[in-house]
């Protein structure tokens, strides 16, 4: 039984961070109606920011959140403003050329990082990177537990922001009916820019929190983009609460898969759940949570 609880705990801790990446993607999905296929690459950039701050200036990863998140917010704002929004004005045969643009942006980010840092594996080995503590018979990774706590804090903060502030309401209103939002005085162009910035900042938060426990290399973005994509679909496109459930589900599924089936199955089981949801619950957890 201990093994099971241990697996569950590991899955939940990881799932909390997945949720953070997923919420970023689902926010962008809701407001712009596009999947941001550079989400994992944005996360990768923040990992490198954390790495540089740590190796050059000895800044603790948790402190570098205060730098990585605003930096990625800014990067997201610039991407939306100068690369994605201009595409809306272009007539093309492909309706979703903004999605293609995000793929391109993801590649450019990866290659720029590879150019600067080479393909070598890097790590942010803090004193707590490999530390664990025990509750009963179950071990908790210190880094992941702290990361989970911070992730929960940012998720709640994001939630409160979306529900209780005028700007947050304007983001939701834009996602639901862009034209009606404009009539209510919402500058929807500005909202898309802010949303992409927020989505990127959440990816940055996850990246920085994961930096002490993951090896960092330029191609780490891709797998996280597909994880975020799975979470967004699991949660029901555009649903924030759904993304939280989606993230936890994926985390637990991967953890169960790697414990009981073997490490090789970690990614496969996530994909099986993904396909299962598409077939049996096509609108995702949104159907169940209604938000």
């Amino acid at each position, binding site marked *: 039984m201990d093994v099971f609880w241990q697996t569950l705990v590991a899955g939940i801790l990881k799932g909390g961070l997945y949720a953070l990446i997923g919420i970023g993607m689902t926010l962008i999905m809701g407001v712009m109606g596009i999947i941001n296929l550079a989400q994992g690459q944005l996360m990768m950039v923040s990992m490198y920011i954390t790495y540089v701050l740590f190796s050059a200036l000895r800044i603790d990863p948790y402190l570098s959140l205060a730098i990585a998140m605003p930096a990625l917010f800014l990067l997201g704002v610039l991407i939306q403003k100068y690369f994605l929004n201009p595409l809306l004005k272009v007539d093309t045969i492909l309706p979703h050329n903004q999605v293609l643009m995000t793929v391109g942006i993801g590649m450019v980010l990866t290659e720029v990082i590879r150019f600067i840092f080479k393909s070598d594996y890097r790590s942010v080995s803090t004193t707590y990177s490999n530390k664990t503590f025990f509750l009963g018979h179950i071990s908790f990774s210190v880094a992941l537990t702290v990361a989970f706590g911070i992730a929960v804090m940012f998720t709640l903060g994001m939630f409160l922001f979306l529900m209780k502030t005028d700007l947050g*309401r304007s983001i939701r*209103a834009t996602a639901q009916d862009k034209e009606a939002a*404009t009539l*209510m005085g919402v500058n929807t162009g500005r909202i898309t820019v802010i949303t992409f910035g927020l989505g990127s900042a959440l990816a940055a938060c996850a990246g920085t929190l994961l930096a002490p426990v993951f090896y960092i290399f330029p191609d780490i973005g891709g797998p996280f983009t597909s994880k975020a994509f799975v979470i967004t679909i699991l949660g029901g496109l555009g649903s924030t609460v759904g993304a939280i459930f989606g993230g936890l589900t994926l985390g637990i599924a991967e953890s169960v898969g790697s414990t009981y089936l073997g490490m090789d199955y970690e990614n496969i089981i996530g994909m099986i759940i993904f396909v299962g949801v598409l077939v049996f619950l096509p609108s995702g957890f949104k159907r169940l949570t209604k*938000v």
Partner: protein
Amino acid sequence: MLKVEGIDVYYGDLQVLWEVSFEVRENEIVVLVGANGAGKSTTLKTISGLLRPRKGAIEFDGLRLDQTPADRIIGCGVVHVPEARRLFVEMSVEENLIMGSLSSAAKARRQERLNWVYGLFPRLRERHSQPAGTLSGGEQQMCAIGRGLMALPKILMFDEPSLGLAPILVQNVFDIIKRINKEGVTILLVEQNVRQTLSFCDRAYVLENGRVVLQGAGRELMTNSYVKEAYLGL
């Protein structure tokens, strides 16, 4: 107060309004009537900046609305209650109302206006925490009107407020519009429901195929032989 002067409006290459001109004076109730596809909704969308005229001008209290960004127009007191209500269906009734009061002037009086709207529509107070998408058609219309009222309108523009409502509710909506007008809000109404609106407005314009073909006082138009034949079926 509101002056539309010779506007030509296109959807892409397709022209839908030709030289449309009309005027709404302070405290009036003015109606644009016409059949489906005559260009009524297009006219309102152009006033509220969702569409831009290729020719002509729209002036409101000396301000060129056709050159004002769409998201600033509501702050000028020009408020559009759109066709089919267009509520934010996943947000609660109260949040929808709050969305009407984003401008700083409206935000400062948010609580007071909220209470006033709830007084006007007690049903909305009962359902304030319910998602707007779960309201009945009549309640949704009240919510849409309430959302417009939250914006401190000088002129309130309604696009087919009677659409899809039971006859008794239609009367109800028109009563409310009259009441809002008595409170000092100018009304511009777009309707297919010609009989009911002509008897209740001050002045009316008849739109056909994107052109203004007739204008006059509401009661005058009701006795006009063309209107009688084409719209009232007499």
